């Protein structure tokens, strides 16, 4: 019956127009009972709250959420934006370092009369802390990147089964190595914070481009401004990664699903920037500068190198000991 149909259409329109729950059961204009006129509907509930939730009898509070569409934005970020951001950050840094290497080349050690003499730059606990953090970081970043790029790059190469196995181990590595990583960051914070307080000298160092750009060697203490930046990046990002990671490791302990989505966004954004930053750190600590690696390798650096790059620190060290510069055990690096 067209008349009936029209009425229904009208009723439905009226239903949709109604956004506030009425107190009494409502009857339609044609007298037909219409309980739905007062019943809840999706549109109305979404206006009250971005999530639709109710009561459920099983003792699982999260199951009481009926619809939580926020995952859609998260998915948009994760699938459409994150791969590009990640690629840009990581590849961008690699490209930049490459360019730098080819234009500037390796920064050579400037020889002087001090060459060959060694000074202890990092003691063994410092080196232990650094390497623990570093090795964890490498595994964490690879397994982390795998969450984003694995299925795009690796899986086509090795097939789904092998990739899934790898990803599974990657996941375990990511979760479990996060703890020594966080501990390492904590150690480094305690060990080096006093040498990383920014000062005026850092400003000068920065203005001179850290000597990388010109031939001048700005003065620096134990750590130059660039190293201090790495330190604070590691500490800051390390803590941020730890905090967001922990929130995700313990689901619903501190936050709900939306919170975890946000944590994941922060975690992944910082992650890729962190990786880019550490790439630069690795470059300068190894390939980029002759003699830098020794600091973390054997712990002892060439005095000449030290005097060039950390003149203030060398002075300070020499002042501490009446017998002159602290010399290492041997003339040759332990390696």
């Amino acid at each position, binding site marked *: 019956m067209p008349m009936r149909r029209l009425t229904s259409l009208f009723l439905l329109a009226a239903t949709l127009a109604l956004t506030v729950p009425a107190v009494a*059961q409502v009857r339609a204009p044609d007298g037909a009972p219409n309980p739905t006129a007062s019943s809840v509907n999706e549109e109305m509930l979404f206006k009250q709250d971005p999530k639709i939730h109710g009561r459920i009898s099983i003792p699982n509070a999260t199951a009481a959420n009926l619809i939580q569409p926020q995952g859609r934005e998260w998915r948009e970020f994760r699938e459409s934006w994150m791969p590009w951001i990640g690629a840009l950050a990581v590849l961008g840094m690699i490209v930049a370092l490459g360019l730098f290497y080819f234009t500037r080349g390796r920064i050579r050690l400037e020889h002087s009369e001090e060459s060959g003499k060694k000074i202890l730059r990092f003691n063994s606990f410092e080196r232990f802390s650094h390497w623990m953090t570093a090795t964890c970081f490498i595994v964490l970043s690879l397994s982390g990147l795998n969450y984003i790029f694995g299925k795009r790059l690796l899986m086509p190469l090795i097939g789904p089964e092998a990739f899934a196995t790898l990803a599974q181990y990657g996941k375990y590595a990511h979760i479990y190595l996060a703890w020594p990583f966080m501990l390492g960051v904590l150690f480094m914070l305690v060990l080096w914070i006093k040498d990383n307080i920014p000062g005026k000298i850092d400003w000068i160092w920065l203005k001179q481009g850290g000597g990388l750009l010109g031939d001048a060697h700005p003065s620096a203490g134990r750590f130059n401004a660039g190293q201090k930046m790495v330190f604070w990046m590691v500490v800051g990002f390390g803590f941020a990664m730890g905090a967001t990671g922990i929130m995700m490791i313990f689901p619903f302990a501190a936050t709900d699903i939306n919170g975890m989505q946000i944590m994941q966004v922060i975690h992944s954004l910082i992650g890729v920037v962190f990786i880019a930053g550490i790439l630069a750190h690795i470059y300068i600590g190894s390939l980029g500068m002759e003699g830098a690696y020794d600091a973390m390798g054997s712990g002892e650096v060439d005095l000449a190198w030290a005097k060039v790059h950390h003149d203030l620190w060398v002075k300070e060290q020499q002042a501490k000991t009446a017998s002159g510069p602290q010399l290492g055990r041997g003339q040759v690096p332990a390696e």
Partner: protein
Amino acid sequence: MLTKRRSGVAARGSHQALAAGLTAHTLDRRGFLRKSGLAAGGLAALGTVRLGAVRQAQAAGASADPAQAVIRKNICTHCSVGCTVTAEVVNGVWVGQEPSWASPINRGAHCAKGAAIRELVHSDRRLRYPMKIVNGEWQRISWDQAITEITDKLQAIRNKSGADSVYWLGSAKFTNEASYLFRKLGAFWGTNNVDHQARICHSTTVAGVANTWGYGAQTNSYNDIRNAKTMIILGGNPAEAHPISMQHVLSGKEINRANMIVIDPRFTRTAAHATEYVRIRSGTDIPVIWGILWHVFQNGWEDKDFIKSRVYAMDDVRKEVAKWTPDEVERVSGVPGEQLKRVAELFAKEKPATLIWCMGATQHTVGTANVRALCILCLATGNVGKPGTGANIFRGHTNVQGATDLGLDVTTLPLYYGLVEGGWKHWARVWEVEYDWLQSRFDEVPASAGRKARSRKENMETPGLTSTRWFDAVSLPADQVDQRTPLKAMMVFGHGGNTVTRMPEAVKGMAELELLVVADPHPTTFAAMDARRDNTYLLPICTSLEMDGSRTASNRSIQWGEQIVKPAFESKNDYEVIYRMAVKLGFADKMFKNVKVVDGVPVAEDLLREINRGGWSTGYCGQSPERLKAHMKNQHKFDLVTLRAPKDDPEVGGDYYGLPWPCWGKPELKHPGTHILYNTSLHVKEGGSTFRARFGTERNGQTLLAEDSFSKGSDLTDGYPEFTFGVFRKLGWDKDLTADELATIQRIGGNNPDAVSWATDLSGGIQRVCLDHGVIPFGNGKARANAWNLPDPVPVHREPVYSPRPDLVAKYPTRPDERQFRMPNVGFSVQKAAVDRGVAKQFPIILSSGRLVEYEGGGEETRSNPWLAELQQDMFVEVNTADAAERGIKDGQFVWVYGPENTAKAKVKALVTDRVAKGVAWMPFHFSGWYQGKDMREHYPKGADPVVLGESVNTVTTYGFDPVTGMQETKVTLCQISAA
């Protein structure tokens, strides 16, 4: 890259591997059960899977089953809707459930319980073997030892204290055949102390409805609700208690754009779908119904023709109703007059209208009166005896209707034959035992406390103790219990121990018993209360899914269930246990004279045939096992709304589904059953009938027979009394009887054959001839608006014993103290004391109880089913938001609920909600196993504890009994709640 591995060759190649997979590694029991079936089913299926089968299935609306599993059909053992359960059985293992599309009752659907029923059979929390308590510890014993010890002790108790000192508590979970057998056992034992759950669910319905128009049962059916244009659901929450009924209710509501009015103190899941919700104060049903009728009479909306021709003494009701002006109704019940006027107009004018009620109406001290008032509302508006109308009473358990019909009741014999000489003699003839021998089994009761002595015959005709008071009958002083001795032994078959109010008193009673036997698939609360050190036995009984037998749904349809799998563990079915006890008690030969016993197990079909041979009074005579089985086989042929099969069908042609009683005459007569009771628009041979002429022909000069109303095609075109051979002779119809029929009537009647009636004529001749003349065997009477034999012939409002409105108690007091069912009922004194003590001030919250969809009854069975238990893990109390705020109670925290008797308290979780009004709390009644804050889990036999335990609401419920049936008051008491 990721696709379905769907190669046929590979699939077939995997057969051996599949089979190997089953044995190559260890499996847990559950996994094995499923897989042992799957392997076989799966193998068969692999060859037959067709692509696009999904589409076909959609088109057909049903699923084609390619597996070779055996399909067995039984009936869900939970509520009374009577859903068919379709089981897939492979190698004797129940491996899966399929939707029962063919059943016109459930059409494939189930509720949480029905959809999880397979686990009931497999449950590892079942009682596995017979056990007894020795010095407070459970010990495993053999069946032989159990039966021997139990029967020896029973005999000893009988010799010392008499037959009446043993209570036989039966079950609404019984099949019809087991119910009948259990009642027969009670009779052969020599007592009327035989009862079951109907006492605590719809005993008041049976009494109230039967006293109004003849039979105490749902007049129409779930399916027929599809015809209603208006429905009132009063004191019922079918969305949780009878979910499948809601398929019909909601469909009807949608198709007819029907008015669905829910009258309830609680905003239930059902109320959420109502077109009008009326919130009342618990226990004020009569003021509300009279308030509705006030508007009906005031506006002349009553069905005057109907009242004139088919109702007796409606004017008496008018007088009472006149007192219930809208103001007084609002003062007492809290419902505004305008709303009731709206309800009244819809119910009286938008017809057909049906009235649905459940335990919210029945479980009151005024239960019978409530039911009577509801019937009168139907009568006044002419809403009985037609499609879409009627009193659609939703019974509780799966076979509570059948168990009631078959006499698990302290006032009747099977099929409502009264405890009178005629009734006993009828059954003695059916059983082929001497009436005198039966009589000799009963006690003589000596005079006591001013009461006369009773002879064996008198005692045989005296109603027994109600199950609501069994523990009072143990603990009260001997002279207050009107039988030879108080109770000494409880034989509990399929009945929870937490379903009766006043648990603390029940625990006391349990401790004093000389013998307690619990025969059940689960240990039940009786086992867990830690009340007993010895003389306590547990017998593992299988579920009715593991046995053959019939079940009567709420709409009187009888459905045959076939054994799905063999009884699990060492459990045995009721028939076998009763038989073995009868053997030991020495009367098995007599009791099973006409019943074949195969391997020690009586055959269900033979039991039903015996019921058929004696079931004339209620029309249980036409439903032979063969006919019932044909119905199950041809389920799909029955119409969804009329429940009728096409006339031309060779097997079930013209039948109503399940041959709803009354199904007149012998099975060969092929009476179709009666879908809608009292429907005069059909010929009696088509299931038509009239109101039953049960109460005589005349009263105070007014006729009790119908006037100008008769069923279609009737030879008699006015009211007429019930038919006897004497009436037949007057009408000259005796000539229509065959020689054999005449001979049987002569034999039964002896020197007074005229007295042989439609109900006692074992030949079925009288019924057959009645049908040929188009008349109803039970006569054509009027329904009674005034039931003069009841305590309140016209229902009057009476405040609950523990009333939240002490100010109203003086005007509307409960009935005076009196003795009922061999016991004193001191409700009046308790009410007076409560008012005097100011109980309503100390306990300001009304406490009501009810049902959850996941659980059923006392809940032992369903709480042992992990699929259900997971959904409701904690006993809770619904507290109104405002009450909770006042008490600093947060949703989900533990609270104490204090009751006004026995300093009772219960520790439960708070569910803070506006489902209940301010000042009202509600608790589900399915929990037990915690008692006053203590977890009693350790007291269950090891491994047989239900998955979920919790406080029983009945720990804090209180005194109060209906005077007609001994129904307990579960819906209104008082409580106080505080944070725990």
